[in-house]
């Protein structure tokens, strides 16, 4: 049993006490939410929003502000800026739990995300700080966060500007045109696409043995582009037959270089009848996810058929780094802006070591890949594109 005077938390002098009516209102709003698991979050959202309104008034805000709320949204519009709320109940902590929808759902876009400490039991809130949308964007490019088991993202507290007076400064003095506009989607789309926060990774450059800045930021490693000999390619316009997985390299081939491994995999795929363009660019990325060392190869190439508009191909090969194995039920999912195109799941019954997804699209189409592990960890990569020059 913790027996110490340290159990007491000092609460900031700027705490705002909510009235019984305000708390009741938030409880009432939570009942509107059809999913029981979401009700508590809705309740906290409304506590945060009301606390923020009260804070504005305490600071002498006299202009009107309007709240926008639906089943998934709880926002305020103040001086033409859209404000979303991140209730923070688990301080002190260096990470802030942010519901997935705040980031991923297009209808939740906001200029500012305000971090509000909630002392639920005490009926008090404190405005801790905020995150500008453009700063969120920048952070997300360099430090994309994996989805946690409870469908939240953990944002480092350091992302937030912990001086709420700065937010007041913006709301009071900043011209609404000073912030990049956030576009509000006409209707909520599902599944949600976090792509809007992501820059495009140019896979066409790989063919020219180049990596763009984004790929470098995300620690992709470029391999020399390959010209596949006709013998390696299946010929004629065979329909794409896509095997979902390929086996491990044989024992004697252990400790191959990534280039050798990639070549071997492509060779094996071609032998299985997978259509590959004559010239391919290759990049790969190694990273750890839920303590598993993963490797993802991405292969790109142009497909041109006479009389057809030019298309491009993306081939993703997900495996574990040498010495490790990919756990069963690992999933590789690829989608366009509107739909899921491939979803491959590693079955327990196969002894495959790589999950494979091959997709083709017009030159202006991009593809977003999400990798999920059985424990619930998931990572969505910046989208791959093949833009025309």
């Amino acid at each position, binding site marked *: *049993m*913790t*027996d*110490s*005077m*340290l*159990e*007491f*938390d*000092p609460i*900031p*002098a*700027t705490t705002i006490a909510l009235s*019984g009516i305000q708390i*009741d209102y938030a*409880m009432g709003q939570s009942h509107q939410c059809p999913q*029981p698991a979401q*009700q*508590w979050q809705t*309740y906290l959202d409304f506590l945060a929003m009301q606390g923020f309104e009260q804070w504005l*008034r*305490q*600071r*002498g805000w*006299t202009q009107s502000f309007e709240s926008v709320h639906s089943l998934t949204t709880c926002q305020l519009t103040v001086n033409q800026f859209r404000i979303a709320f991140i209730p923070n*109940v*688990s*301080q*002190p*902590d*260096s*990470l802030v*739990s942010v519901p997935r929808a705040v980031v991923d759902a297009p209808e939740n876009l906001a200029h500012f995300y305000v971090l509000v*400490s909630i*002392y*639920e*039991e*005490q*009926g*008090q809130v404190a405005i*801790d700080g905020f995150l*500008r949308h453009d700063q969120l964007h920048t952070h997300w490019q360099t430090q994309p966060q994996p989805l*946690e*088991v*409870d469908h*939240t993202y*953990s944002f480092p507290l350091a992302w937030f500007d*912990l*001086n709420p*007076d*700065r937010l*007041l*400064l*913006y709301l*009071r*003095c*900043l*011209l609404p*045109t*000073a912030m990049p506009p956030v576009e509000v989607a006409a209707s909520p789309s599902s599944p949600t696409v976090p792509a809007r926060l992501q820059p495009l990774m140019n896979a066409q450059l790989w063919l020219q043995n180049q990596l763009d800045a984004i790929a470098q930021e995300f620690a992709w490693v470029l391999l020399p582009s390959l010209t596949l000999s006709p013998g390696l390619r299946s010929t004629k316009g065979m329909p794409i037959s896509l095997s979902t997985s390929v086996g491990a390299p044989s024992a004697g081939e252990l400790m191959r270089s990534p280039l050798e491994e990639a070549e071997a995999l492509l060779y094996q795929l071609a032998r299985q009848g997978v259509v590959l363009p004559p010239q391919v660019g290759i990049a790969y990325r190694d990273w750890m996810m839920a303590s598993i060392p993963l490797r993802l190869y991405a292969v790109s190439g142009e497909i041109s058929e006479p009389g057809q508009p030019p298309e491009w191909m993306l081939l993703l090969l997900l495996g574990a780094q040498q010495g490790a194995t990919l756990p069963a039920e690992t999933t590789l999912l690829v989608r366009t802006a509107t739909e899921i195109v491939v979803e491959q799941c590693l079955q327990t019954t196969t002894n495959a070591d790589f999950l494979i997804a091959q997709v083709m699209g017009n030159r202006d189409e991009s593809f977003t890949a999400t990798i999920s592990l059985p424990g619930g960890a998931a990572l969505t990569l910046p989208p791959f594109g093949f833009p025309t020059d």
Partner: protein
Amino acid sequence: MIDKTRYWKLVKLDVTGSSRETEVLSAKEFFQQKISSTLDDDREIQKQLLAIAGDELDSPDGMAANLCLRCFISYQIQQVCIGLEKRYGHYYGLNQQDLFAFVLDDDGTALFPIREPPSPHRYQPLAFKILQSFNPGRASLSTWVARLVKSHAGLNAFLLERGLCLLSDWALLNDTGLPKLQRALKQFHQMSDREVTQAQILLESYHAVYRRDRLQQRQKGRCLPPTEPQLQAIGQRMQEQTGQQYTSQALQLQLETLADRLRQYRIASRGGNPWGQSLDQPEAFPLVDDSPTHGLNEPDEQSVFLQFYRRQFLTGLETAFTQVVSERVKTQKTAKAQLFLQALQLFHCQGESMTAIAPVIGLQGQYQVTRLLKLKEFRADVRHCLLQYLKRVITDKATDYTTPEQLNQLDDQIEVALAEQIDAVIQQEQANTKTPKSYVVSSLFARILCHYLDRQLPASVH
């Protein structure tokens, strides 16, 4: 060697509200006759006393054993209050007498048998609730006393008013999400994956039941321990997931243990973030915030800025004071608004320290003056107001407001201009010394503010 006199000296309140020890003769005689003098372990002694007090309800021995335990409890309660005063008293303006009034409420006269169910019609001292809920198998009596004193509803409300809050176990569990649970148990407590998964299922089941009921039944304020039906519902959910059966008692214990682990993690992780200001330096909180350092790299930049704005700056500052002070006054109740003006005047114009201001305006201590004045916010509001003013009057410079960065820079420049004069005062203030008189005469901020305040306040207050 333990102090056995604790078992026959009752600590209670005297008429002045201080604590005083009184020897209870019947308890002393009983203790010396019936409890072996070779026993030198509080736990063992308490076990014997509990057994006698519980079994011999109406006998003189039972009553005496009961009194012995209450004497021991009264001393522990006193110690917890003294501990609170020692740790928080100075900054939060707590003294032990204030705290005693809530929890040191057993005068030793009434009889409160341990096994008698609590009566709603009769006032029950805290000591009685402590004895009734005490389980010697779980914790020592002194730990149990500390726990119940610190979670006493009246005491908690009092502390909250002073800026200290204590989350109940149940609120702590409500506030904890799964990622945090994993961090606390895995990284901090180094528990195995199996244990973590088990705890995860427990917490999810608790959330599903307890949070739902709190919302549906519209419970506000202190989170009470889960009821028997709630524990059963939690057990049901657990069973669905694990296939095991749980008794309500075991579940409650598991939940309390989990809350305790989370609390330890919480305390450990409090260092180094904005909420985690160590209470040893509570002053680090409210007064001086980060002084802007960027945006003013060249020495001339500030003077150019000030020259340019000088005229507008003076008028703007007065306008800003008028607006900010009147808005502050508007949002407060009349009495408090008057206090605010008075405190502002005493601080900025008379050069009084917050400690000195407190008694003049009828407040408990510096912390309350700090909360009343909210100097940091006051300054920010004045700056922003000044910026809005400047934007209106100097139209050709309005382009500077078009990016957040430019606006930040302007705000910082004004802050530097104002802060140079004010920060010195505030830092002095933190050391609880008087405001230097030179500030009062020389500071632009103070001059204009005082000029304004002089017109607002009736002559009687200064």
